[in-house]
């Protein structure tokens, strides 16, 4: 047993860290609140992608023939961790979902068309999975794609289509066969968001950033944009989700939040002494540090398994569940430590950590149901991991 990073891994980590420390300005770090969805944040991310491409760090996980670095899983984890610590996560959907799926399952034409664009950061994607009546039960989705000559014609409605208003393509799941059990009739499409018939309606979230409802009204998509094989979409999505849960979930953000909370506790006087000298605060922060370590170890385990070509099944679900629930406990503890100052959001005078604490508390609501609810994760751990009967 050996928890040490290899020399190469350490070098990569240090290089990343130095680069990010240099390139990501402190004021973005301290004001990253929802920036990913803001105009200025978007502009920063676009510029930042160019720098990543210069460093050949854009597609670290992909095979070299597709413009990637073919980095091993542990380095992918380090990459995702460091970038998310600094709150830069360029082209996440393209890099982590679309790219890998195309590499494994896409047609040759799809690979040649999309992979280089993704690797160069020239194209953005939104995910068209969830529907008003298909959340946890994603396989019950009703958006349909009907074959009409060389095209598929798409009709339906999607919700939580984050980034739909500024993405070039939608990675869309639609039903291509009504006659088979529900998860067997789904296909995946690459849909140009400029295609007529798509309309996008904003939804503002509790955390303040924008997501969307998208309406699909006779949207014609060429058959060449059906990913891989027809009716195999469910398996592609599941494979992508497993992948996404492990390496590219932005767990580094939690470490950043923890570090900032520690800084807040040390730097904030309350009752004549720093918060970090209050026994209750000390105990709370100490407990959080343990969960932080546990989460990192679960992430390392999952990445290590992938590196050994073992497929994490329940392990990925455990990580996702633990990390997202920890995030709620972390942000809640931050709010409790900040007291009344935690009630103030970004922009309000006196807001604790410039509103970071408040933002995270609002944001942390989502990950325990987004991308597979904690309830589903527990089902998976029990059934796949422990072999309990359905």
């Amino acid at each position, binding site marked *: 047993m050996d928890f040490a990073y290899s020399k190469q891994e350490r070098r990569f980590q240090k290089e990343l860290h130095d680069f990010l420390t240099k390139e990501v300005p402190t004021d973005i770090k301290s004001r990253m609140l929802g920036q990913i969805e803001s105009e200025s944040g978007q502009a920063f991310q676009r510029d930042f992608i160019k720098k990543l491409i210069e460093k050949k760090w854009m597609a670290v996980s992909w095979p070299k023939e597709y413009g990637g670095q073919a980095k091993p899983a542990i380095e992918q984890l380090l990459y995702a961790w460091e970038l998310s610590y600094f709150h830069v996560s360029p082209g996440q959907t393209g890099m982590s979902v679309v790219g890998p799926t195309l590499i494994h399952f896409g047609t040759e034409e799809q690979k040649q068309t999309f992979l280089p664009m993704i690797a160069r950061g020239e194209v953005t994607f939104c995910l068209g999975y969830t529907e008003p009546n298909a*959340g946890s039960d994603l396989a019950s989705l009703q958006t349909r794609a009907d074959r009409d000559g060389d095209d598929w014609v798409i009709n339906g409605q999607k919700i939580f289509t984050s980034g739909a208003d500024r993405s070039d393509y939608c990675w869309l799941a639609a039903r291509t066969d009504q006659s088979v059990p529900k998860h067997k009739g789904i296909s995946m499409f690459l849909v140009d968001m400029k295609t007529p018939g798509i309309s996008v309606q904003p939804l*503002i*979230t509790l955390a303040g950033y924008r997501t969307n409802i998208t309406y699909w009204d006779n949207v014609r998509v060429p058959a060449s944009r059906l990913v891989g094989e027809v009716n195999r979409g469910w398996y592609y999505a599941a494979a992508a989700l497993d992948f996404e849960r492990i390496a590219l979930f932005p767990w580094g953000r939690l470490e950043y939040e923890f570090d900032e909370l520690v800084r807040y506790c040390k730097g904030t006087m309350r009752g004549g002494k720093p918060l970090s000298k209050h026994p209750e605060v000390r105990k709370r922060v100490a407990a959080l540090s343990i969960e932080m370590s546990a989460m990192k170890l679960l992430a390392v385990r999952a990445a290590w398994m992938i590196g050994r070509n073992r497929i994490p099944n329940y392990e990925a679900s455990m990580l996702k569940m633990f990390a997202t629930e920890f995030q709620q406990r972390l942000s809640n503890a931050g709010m409790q430590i900040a007291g009344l100052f935690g009630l103030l959001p970004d922009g309000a005078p006196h807001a604790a950590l410039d509103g970071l604490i408040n933002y995270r508390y609002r944001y942390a609501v989502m990950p325990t149901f*987004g991308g597979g609810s904690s309830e589903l994760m527990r089902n998976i751990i029990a059934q796949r991991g422990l072999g309990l009967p359905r």
Partner: protein
Amino acid sequence: MNLDWSESQELLRKTARDFFARESPPAKVKQLEKTPARQDPDLWRKIASLGWLGLPFPEKYGGANGSFLDLVALLEEMGRAAIVSPFLSSVVLSGDLLLKAGSDAQKERLLPAIANGSAIVAVALCESDASYAPDDVQLTANLSSPLEGEELSKREPSALRGEGASVPPWRLSGTKLFVLDGLSADHFIVAARTKPGKGPAGISLFVVDATSPSITRAPLASFGGEAQAEVRFDNVIVPDDALLGPLHKGWPLVRAYLRRGALAMCAQMVGGAQQALDMTVAYAKQRIQFGRPIGSFQAIQHKCADMATDVDTARYLTYYAAWKQDAKQQNALEISQAKAWLSDAYRRVAREAQQIHAGIAYVDDHDLQLYFRRAKAGEVLFGDADFHLREVASLLKL
């Protein structure tokens, strides 16, 4: 023993529920939250016309002589509707401080005005620590500069020297944070240091005209929806008769204010938690996934059972403390027990409500978010769980 509301209380509850549903529906509340002052004069007038602004006051001040449980009935409905108003600040708390400690003149001037809605009075307590501890009160109230040759020690205010004597006015300087309803207030009750130092001694309360040009106010846009403000007092001159209660010995009044505020918050929080539970149960019955209502899944059922248990325990802890108040029994322990419990329980209920609603309630204008945000603010206001657990430990004589 009787755990039912009285008939008149039931009527009050029903009237209030219908009134708030009609006059302050969630959409309107959310609009109001986007305004700086978070006060709707129109709604306020309508509430006034129902007589609720004088509910706890004696009749001679235009009040209805209501019990604390009457207040609980009303506050619970306010919490259920998640309404935003200065009711708590002005009626429940400032009104009570005036009743407890005000001179006849102060009471006559302000209580009828509060009761008819023409004056809003807010309490300015917290400063840079926002900890509800006496050390946090550092705003100074000094007597105006002495006249030539006059000794400071002789410059006692009239409260100490008997009525009628005149002394130079007080000058208040400092900054108050988290002044509830600080922007809509017409008057402040300000906790100030009349003797420099720390601890509870040397704190006095003053009634201050909020429109003084030496007062600057700015909103603190709490995500909880309540109307918080920062209020700066820049050498504000107030007359000697502005002193509310005993000189230097105002802290017991502040403690009473905090306790009453905590209990009133509990009542609001019970209403909010019940509403979050009701919304969740209704949603779980109609939301279909995997071919069944999600409310038929055991994981959802057990979450809902825990939520119901949190709500029921919170409800009776609150009612019990309120009943003791009306029965003139010591209830500091029961208040702190209720508030410590509710601080956690309402948050747990709101958190599970969000989890069961999932995505749909993560949308900013979903009504459930009112409760998610109120729960967090309620947790902290008038003392969080840690604060009240410390109180409980002391009151248990541990």
